[in-house]
């Protein structure tokens, strides 16, 4: 297991991303942050605080649960939805910045975009991610990237945030070679266990 970011680097990275958001939005009052559950949400709140410190502007923050918009619904079992989507403001005409921890295949972002568009018509949608690990399966790219790393498909990139995990940091680990292939009780062995959504940081 290797450490990609320690807590200090983590907070400097977020701070830099917040400044980029401020720089690129002359109309900052019309922007909003929407985090993708689960770790995108605390990151969005963190960015909102840093944006306020840098510019004085309070950005509204929302949360997206993409479970109902997944495209691999037929191959994985449904997970309970405990928190759901919560966007307590109108997104019409706003610049909405979608925030997630790890950008991997791009399928989570696709689901997030579909869902956002069901909530209204934003003027623009941007994407901010803490880690871009490559291996895109869709034509999607991020506007704000904390760190780009090259990974192999089998590796796991795990983002930890204070609010949920007790400390900040980004870890990269190899899939344990001794572990048996991931088996979903209902679907049998899967060819691409890296796309199982339960573990953080490698959601499709």
């Amino acid at each position, binding site marked *: 297991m290797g450490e990609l970011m320690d807590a200090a680097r983590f907070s400097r990275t977020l701070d830099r991303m917040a400044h980029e958001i401020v720089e690129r939005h002359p109309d900052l009052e019309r922007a909003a942050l929407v985090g993708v559950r689960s770790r995108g949400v605390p990151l969005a709140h963190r960015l909102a605080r840093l944006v306020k410190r840098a510019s004085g502007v309070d950005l509204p923050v929302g949360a997206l*649960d993409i*479970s*109902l*918009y*997944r495209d691999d*619904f*037929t*191959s*994985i*079992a*449904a*997970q*309970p*939805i*405990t*928190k*759901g*989507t*919560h966007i307590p403001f109108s997104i019409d005409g706003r610049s909405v910045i979608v925030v997630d921890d790890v950008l991997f295949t791009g399928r989570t972002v696709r689901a997030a975009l*579909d*869902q956002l568009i*069901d*909530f*209204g018509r934003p003027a623009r949608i941007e994407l901010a991610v803490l880690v871009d690990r490559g291996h895109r399966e869709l034509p999607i790219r991020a506007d704000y990237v904390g760190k780009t790393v090259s990974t192999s498909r089998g590796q796991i990139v795990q983002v930890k945030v204070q609010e949920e995990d007790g400390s900040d940091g980004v870890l990269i680990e190899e899939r344990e070679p001794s572990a048996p292939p991931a088996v*979903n*009780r*209902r*679907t049998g062995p899967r060819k691409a266990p890296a796309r199982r959504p*339960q573990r953080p940081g490698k959601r499709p």
Partner: protein
Amino acid sequence: MSGFPHRHLLGIEPLEPSDIETLLDTADGLKEVLDRPIKKVPALRGKTVVNLFYEPSTRTRSSFEIAEKVLSADSLSIATAASSVTKGETLLDTAKNLEAMNPDMFVVRHSAAGAPHFLARHCRSAIINAGDGAHEHPTQALLDALTLRQRKGRLKGLRVAIVGDILHSRVARSNVWLLTKMGAEVVLCGPPTLIPPGIEALCPVTYRIDEAIEGADAVMMLRIQLERMSGGFLPSLREYFQRFGLDEARVRRAKKDVVILHPGPMNRGVEIASEVADGPYSVILDQVTNGVAVRMAVLYLLLGGSGGTA
């Protein structure tokens, strides 16, 4: 691992408390979809649900239909009065023929207890029990529990009185199972003729409504099911209201923040006075809204992923 380890929802009795919690939490999470500008999510796109109702229903059927539409499932409802059932087709033949059209799920209401269990043994599709005779009505108990949990913040330790026609009530049975599994204290109340023998084994019974309501956190009034009574159960509806009906004076015996539930359809002036049904403590319409959320949760957890085909 799936969040919900069942293929069918046949009743509350076979569920674990953790299953009930998963269903309620999911319903809470899904409720928000109903307030969106576009009340539709693609979760069950391409799934087909057949609503097979052998008994009349307004709330349950429309609630399932709305839940199916919001989740983007394709659904059709079969009213048996206008179907081949009137030509003498058996339940199993009807289901087998419909199943030949490849649906993923049946939502079944039937006057015979155990009809959904019978279909679950003989069909490939997932089965949801939407009420079987006087046996169980699991989604009703779940929506009652969701309403209570939203109002009280918990189920454990609540004192709940269930009053009325317990004998014919599948709602009462499902609620007794659910509430006792979740640690609530349930007391049943009704005229001796409408209390099923042996039910004392599950929870205490009283024939005096004032005793049942005393200090209650919630009172659930049940409909007098005249269509299931062959006579002899009640002297008159007027006398029933006097002895077992819920009016404002009786509500005052309960806790100050009591909530009044009724599964509907109500018989105003028989089991519940109008001023109570429309009073500030009544959560009857919340129950209806929560009904859609609960049915969305059941459909989602049973049909989501490969749940319906394994």
